C-alpha cells in the first residue's frame, strides 16, 4: 500500500529495543556478571545458585564466528510466501559478553559477501508484514556496508 506508513512492531516482544540504534535485550547474572540471550531463556550458571538475572543491553558490534544460509524456505513458524529469498544467517561473537549470538544477515548481503572475523553491527529488519504492521527482527549487517 504505497503512501501509507505501517507500524513497526517487534515480531516477538522483549528481545530487542526499537531505539535507533537498536540493542538486543539480554540478561546478566547479578551474582557473577555472566550474560545470556534471550534474557529469560539462558542456561543457568551452576556456580550462581541464586540465578537472579537483570536486564542488560548487549553490544551492538561483533565479529562473524561463522555463517550460512537457508536456501529452502524454513517451515512454520517461519513466515514466508511464494517469493522466498534465501535467508543469510550469521553467528556473531560479542567481545565483551564472550558469547555468540545467531541472527539473520541484513539483505542484500549473501554468503558470498561474508567472511569469518568480519565486523558486523546490529540493525532491525522486516521479517514479514500484514496490512497494518511491519514485524521486525534483529539482523547483523557488515559495518562497511551502507553507513
Amino acid at each position: 500500500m504505497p503512501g501509507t506508513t505501517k507500524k513497526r512492531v517487534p515480531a516477538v516482544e522483549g528481545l530487542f529495543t526499537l531505539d535507533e540504534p537498536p540493542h538486543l535485550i539480554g540478561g546478566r547474572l547479578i551474582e557473577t556478571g555472566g550474560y545470556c540471550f534471550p534474557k529469560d531463556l539462558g542456561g543457568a550458571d551452576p556456580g550462581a545458585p541464586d540465578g537472579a538475572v537483570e536486564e542488560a543491553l548487549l553490544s551492538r558490534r561483533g565479529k562473524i564466528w561463522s555463517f550460512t544460509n537457508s536456501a529452502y524456505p524454513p517451515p512454520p513458524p517461519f513466515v514466508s510466501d511464494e517469493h522466498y529469498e534465501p535467508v543469510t544467517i550469521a553467528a556473531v561473537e560479542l567481545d565483551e559478553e564472550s558469547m555468540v549470538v545467531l541472527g539473520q544477515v541484513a539483505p542484500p548481503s549473501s554468503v558470498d559477501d561474508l567472511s569469518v572475523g568480519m565486523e558486523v553491527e546490529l540493525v532491525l529488519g522486516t521479517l514479514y508484514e500484514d496490512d497494518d504492521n511491519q514485524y521486525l527482527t534483529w539482523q547483523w549487517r557488515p559495518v562497511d556496508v551502507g553507513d
Partner: protein
Amino acid sequence: MDEIAILGVGMHPWGKWGRNFTDYGVHAARAALDDADLDWREVGFVSGAITVRCGYPGYVAGSTFARALGFTGAQVASSYSACASGATALAVARGQILSGVCDVALVVGADTTPDGFLAPNEGRRPDDTDWLRFHLVGATNPVYFGLHARRRMELHGATREDFALVKVKNSRHAVHNPNARFTKEFGPDDVANSPVVSDPLRLLEICTTSDGGAALVVASMDYARSRGVTDPVRVAGISLVTPTYPDPVIDLPYLATDSSSAVVPAEKGFKESIGAQVYAESGLGPEDVDLAEVYDLSSAMELDWYEQLGLCSEGEAEGLLRAGDTSIGGRIPVNPSGGLGAFGEAVPAQALAQVCELTWQVRGEAGRRQVEGARIGISANQGLFGHGSGVLVRR
C-alpha cells in the same frame, strides 16, 4: 562399570513406508528376539524410546510395543531425549539389569516421520527457544550444520570436496547394507550437482528423515552364561552426558551460546565429553577402537566426530578421510553401516541402530561391509537440548 550382554539385535529397514511406527518397532523387536533365540515372555523389562510425532502411543512407546507383542506383566518404561532417546532407553535397561530388577530386557525405538524439515509443534510459543529460532531467524537444523561446516573450513582448511568425500565414502558402505534406505553409490559430481541447502552443505550431504525401527535384547552376564552364551557381545560403556556451563559452541536449538565472561569453559567441549564418558566407563581408549558409528547429520559433522572421539587430533580429520583411513579396509572405519546419510533419521531408533551395526560388526556378521577383525566399536550421537549419547560395544 559392570557390563551387560547383548543377546540379540534387530531392525526394520529404513525407508518411507508410511505405516504406523508400532509395526516397525514390533518387527525389529521380533527380529532381535529371534536373533537371541528368546521367547518374548522371558523379557522382564521393556524400555521404549519415545517418538513425539505419532500421538499418544508414541509418548508411551514402551507400553505400545509391549501391548503389540502381547502384555505379559513385564515392567515397562519410556524415555525421550531427542536423537539420544535410544541410548537413554538402553541405559535405563542397563540400570534395571545391574540393579537386579530383571535378567533380560528388550529395548525398542521406532518412528514414522513426516517429509521435509523437522519443525516445532504448532502454536505461538515465544518462551521456547526452539520456536524462536524458526520464527525469528529461519534457523532450521541444517543452518546449524552449515555454521559448523563453515567454521571447520575456516579453522582446519576443510574443503567442499572433503565434505563430499564423506558422502561418497558412506554411500559406498551403504551399498552392502540391506537395512539402509539409500543404497546407491554416489560420486563427487553427484554431490556437487545437488542443490545447496545451507551453504556450504548440499542436499546429498544432509540427512533426511525416515521411517524405521531398531531393537536390542540385553541381559545380565549371568543370564547370558545360563543360556550357554559364554562370550557374549557386551555393552561396556554408555554416555548420557549434558554440556558443562558455559558451553561456548552455538548449537541447535539455541539463539546464543552461554557467556564465557564470568566462568572459563571446561577444557573438554560437550561433544568431546560424550566419548570421554564412554571411554571412562569401559576402561578403554580411542586407540582400542576398531570402528565407529557416528551421527553424521551432515557430511561435515562426521569429520568433527573423528576428533571429538579421539580417533585423531584436532585438525587432522581431513587427512584421515583423504587417506582412506575411515573407509572399510582402512585403519579406523567410520560409519560402515552407511551412517545417517544412507539411513535418514528415525529419531528414537537411530542410537539403537548404531548399536545393532556395532554388534553385527564385532560378531563378524556384517557381510560385505565387515570391518576385518573388529572387536571393539563405539557409537556417538547427540540429541537436541544437550543430550549426549554414546555406547561402547565389545566382544
